[in-house]
């Protein structure tokens, strides 16, 4: 290689040095293409520069800055002309000077050839000695490391480097490379870590790089890093960058999938059946005609719908002649699917709160030939009052959420969601799910199910809401029949959820090739409410303080209508909510939680005591009668 030729040319001084240098040099040239590009001189200069940088690494100064090379090049070109080893070291010395911004070595010399010869020679010999000493030390260090040399390469950038980067426009290639490196280090942290760097530092750096490379805000990236191991995180983020394939669902009220596929193929649409879990889905790869404007679409033979929207309806499994409520129905993809499954029998109440979306809902219903639906425009929280408590067989609640699972459709979610948004959504979802549960009749012959789904991946909007429902009402989680998803979390960081939550299902873009989604199916066990005392004693999983006020508010709104059923319940006081017979571990869990957050329960406990006292006097009054 070039270095070999150099030593031949110049009569190498250090025998140990060149072979070792050569190894390192090769590696460095492979991994630093940018440096190769910059130097239009031979590889020699490259390798020498890189050796120097190795020295610099020892002192911990910057490795990745680009402005080193032009200077180094000039000096090394000068060195080639001179043609001696000494000359080499002379040229290297000033390069050392310019690269080592923090170090004090060789402060005095300025590196041009015009200085006085004597002092030059002194300096040269000193520099050469230093250099040799360093090489020896370095060689020893290298001998001691027992792993591939690549492991030594990656160093976390220092403060100055980061500041410098912040001032420059982001270097995407650099960021991408650093992300890959950190992921590699984290995957084998024990062996590959930089000394003195904690895991936290790596993760912080990764967070910053990911948010600037992909455009996320800090909150979202922080949450994603907590939820996924690093390799999966990268896959997930890459999956979010690409759109998911377009799917359509055959309207079984009007056509069969086979016939529809034939007709569309004739029109020039390239499609395939969706998957084995769906008999009505088709996925469109590409199409010569606009798929949303074919005469078949307008005749209502199919509906454009993403694959994840099939799931809650499949979980709901509506039967013929049932009464179904869809609490957030627009634009109507799921509602029409439900109607198709029911073959236009029974009755569906399709509710939508936002007026502008009602038009598309009615249009879709009419287009697809659905006749068993009543469309109304209420806030979902008022529905039980209108439709009556315990009056329907099944409820589908596809709750409004933060939309963190559909980033591939809507990039603005990356930057616009914050903790408050998530909390607000979670609050609304909790109220909605309680209202949904209240509408269902537990004693219905064929039903009694609630399906709760969101297109978000946040734990606070998914498992936490279902857990809340489990505490507040007599429901239990049942398997949703979608076995190809990932089970939901039963524990996450400091949260502890009911163990049956592993029957809920989560879907991810990088695993299932559909948007991020969550589905949970609940069965209402009994129409009566669990007693208030039991409800309050069961401490909620760790959530922020505003939540306890939310629950009071929810309790307050629901309570007036429930006074009768509550009074009936009081004699049968100890009503266990978790019907699965988890009474024994519960008190222990309560104690654990109580120990952690005693003061958090003060407010609800005080109000609860007041309520108890009130009820106690009432009962006494009744008893005395």
């Amino acid at each position, binding site marked *: 290689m070039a270095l070999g030729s150099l030593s031949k040319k110049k009569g190498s001084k250090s025998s140990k040095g060149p072979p070792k240098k050569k190894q390192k040099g090769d590696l460095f040239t492979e991994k630093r293409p940018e440096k190769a590009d910059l130097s239009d001189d031979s590889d020699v200069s490259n390798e020498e520069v890189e050796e120097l940088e190795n020295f610099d690494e020892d002192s911990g100064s910057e490795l990745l800055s680009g402005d080193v090379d032009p200077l180094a090049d000039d000096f090394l070109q000068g060195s080639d002309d001179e043609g001696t080893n000494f000359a080499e070291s002379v040229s290297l010395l000033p390069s050392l000077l310019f690269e080592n911004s923090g170090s004090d070595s060789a402060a005095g010399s300025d590196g041009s050839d015009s200085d006085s010869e004597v002092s030059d020679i002194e300096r040269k010999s000193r520099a050469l000695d230093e250099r040799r000493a360093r090489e020896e030390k370095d060689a020893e260090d290298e001998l001691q490391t027992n792993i591939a040399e690549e492991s030594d390469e990656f160093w976390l950038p220092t403060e100055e480097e980061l500041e410098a980067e912040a001032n420059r426009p982001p270097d995407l290639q650099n960021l991408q490379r650093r992300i890959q490196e950190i992921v590699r280090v984290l995957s084998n942290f024990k062996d590959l870590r930089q000394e003195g760097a904690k895991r936290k530092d790596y993760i912080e750096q990764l967070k910053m790089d990911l948010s600037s490379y992909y455009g996320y805000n800090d909150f979202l990236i922080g949450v994603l890093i907590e939820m996924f191991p690093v390799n999966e995180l990268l896959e997930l983020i890459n999956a979010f960058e690409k759109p998911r394939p377009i799917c359509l669902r055959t309207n079984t009220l009007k056509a069969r999938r086979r016939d529809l596929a034939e007709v569309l193929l004739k029109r020039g649409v390239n499609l395939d059946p969706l998957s084995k879990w769906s008999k009505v889905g088709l996925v469109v790869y590409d199409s010569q005609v606009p798929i949303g404007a074919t005469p078949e679409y307008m005749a209502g033979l199919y509906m454009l719908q993403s694959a994840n929207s099939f799931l809650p309806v499949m979980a709901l499994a509506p039967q013929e002649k049932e009464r179904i409520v869809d609490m957030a129905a627009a634009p109507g993809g799921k509602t029409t699917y439900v109607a198709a499954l029911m073959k236009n029998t029974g009755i569906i109440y399709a509710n939508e709160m936002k007026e502008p979306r009602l*038009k598309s809902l009615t249009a879709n219903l*009419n287009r697809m030939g659905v006749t068993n639906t009543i*469309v109304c425009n209420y806030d979902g929280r008022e529905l039980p009052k*209108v439709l009556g408590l315990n009056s329907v067989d099944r409820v589908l609640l596809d709750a409004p959420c933060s939309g963190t699972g559909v980033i591939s459709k809507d990039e603005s979610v990356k930057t616009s969601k914050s903790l408050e948004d998530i909390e607000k959504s979670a609050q609304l979802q909790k109220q909605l799910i309680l209202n949904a549960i209240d509408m269902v009749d537990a004693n219905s012959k064929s039903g009694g199910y609630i399906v709760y789904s969101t297109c978000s991946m946040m734990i606070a909007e998914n498992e936490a809401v279902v857990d809340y429902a489990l505490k507040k009402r007599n429901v239990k989680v049942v398997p949703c029949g979608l076995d190809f998803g990932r089970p939901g979390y039963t524990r996450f960081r400091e949260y502890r959820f009911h163990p049956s939550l592993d029957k809920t299902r989560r879907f991810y873009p990088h695993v299932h090739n559909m948007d991020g989604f969550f589905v949970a199916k609940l069965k209402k066990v009994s129409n009566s409410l669990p007693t208030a005392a039991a409800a309050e004693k069961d401490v909620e999983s760790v959530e922020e303080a505003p939540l306890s006020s939310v629950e009071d508010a929810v309790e307050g709104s629901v309570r007036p209508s429930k006074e009768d059923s509550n009074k009936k319940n009081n004699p049968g006081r100890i009503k266990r909510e978790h019907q699965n017979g988890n009474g024994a571990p519960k008190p222990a869990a309560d104690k654990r939680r109580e120990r952690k957050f005693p003061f958090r329960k003060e407010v609800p406990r005080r109000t609860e005591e007041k309520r108890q006292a009130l009820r106690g006097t009432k009962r006494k009054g009744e008893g005395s009668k």
Partner: protein
Amino acid sequence: MRPLDEAETTVVFEKLLKFTGNNLKNIVESPAHEGPDPNPGRYCFRLQKNRVYYVSEALVKRATNISRKNLVAMGTCVGRFTHGGKFHLTVQCLGLLAANAKHKVWLKPTSEMSFLYGNHVLKGGLGRITDGIQPGDGVVVFSMSDVPLGFGNAAKSTQDCRKLDPNGIVVHHQSDIGEYLRMEDDL
């Protein structure tokens, strides 16, 4: 939501009659399988916000506790009353009409899209036509694969159509399924 009064009922039935003729009794008397009751009920017409809906009685019963402000739609929309009191059939009743239509017209594939953009049916685009059409009759327009595309008024009788030149209008366009995309807001 209220039932139609006499005048309104006559108007609506007149319009429907133009398309269905004797089959009108099918529309009015067909058994309704909607609703959770095991026995099929009947259909009826209801008026809500100037729109006429064709709903089964079971649904109507259960829609009564939804307040007038919040009830948006029920069953199938048949048409709407304009501000001036006239009644127009809208495209949403196409399914109903197509099942009971007396006069039908089938379009060639090349002229399907033209009709779906709102143009009238020309003689050159005509594939098949049923006999016995009089000018002014309601006609339902199908594609050659029997997919209903819309409906309109016949401009000429069947005999006259045969004598027409290719650019003559056969059916005046009234409504078509392209309106779901073009005029979703107005439906």
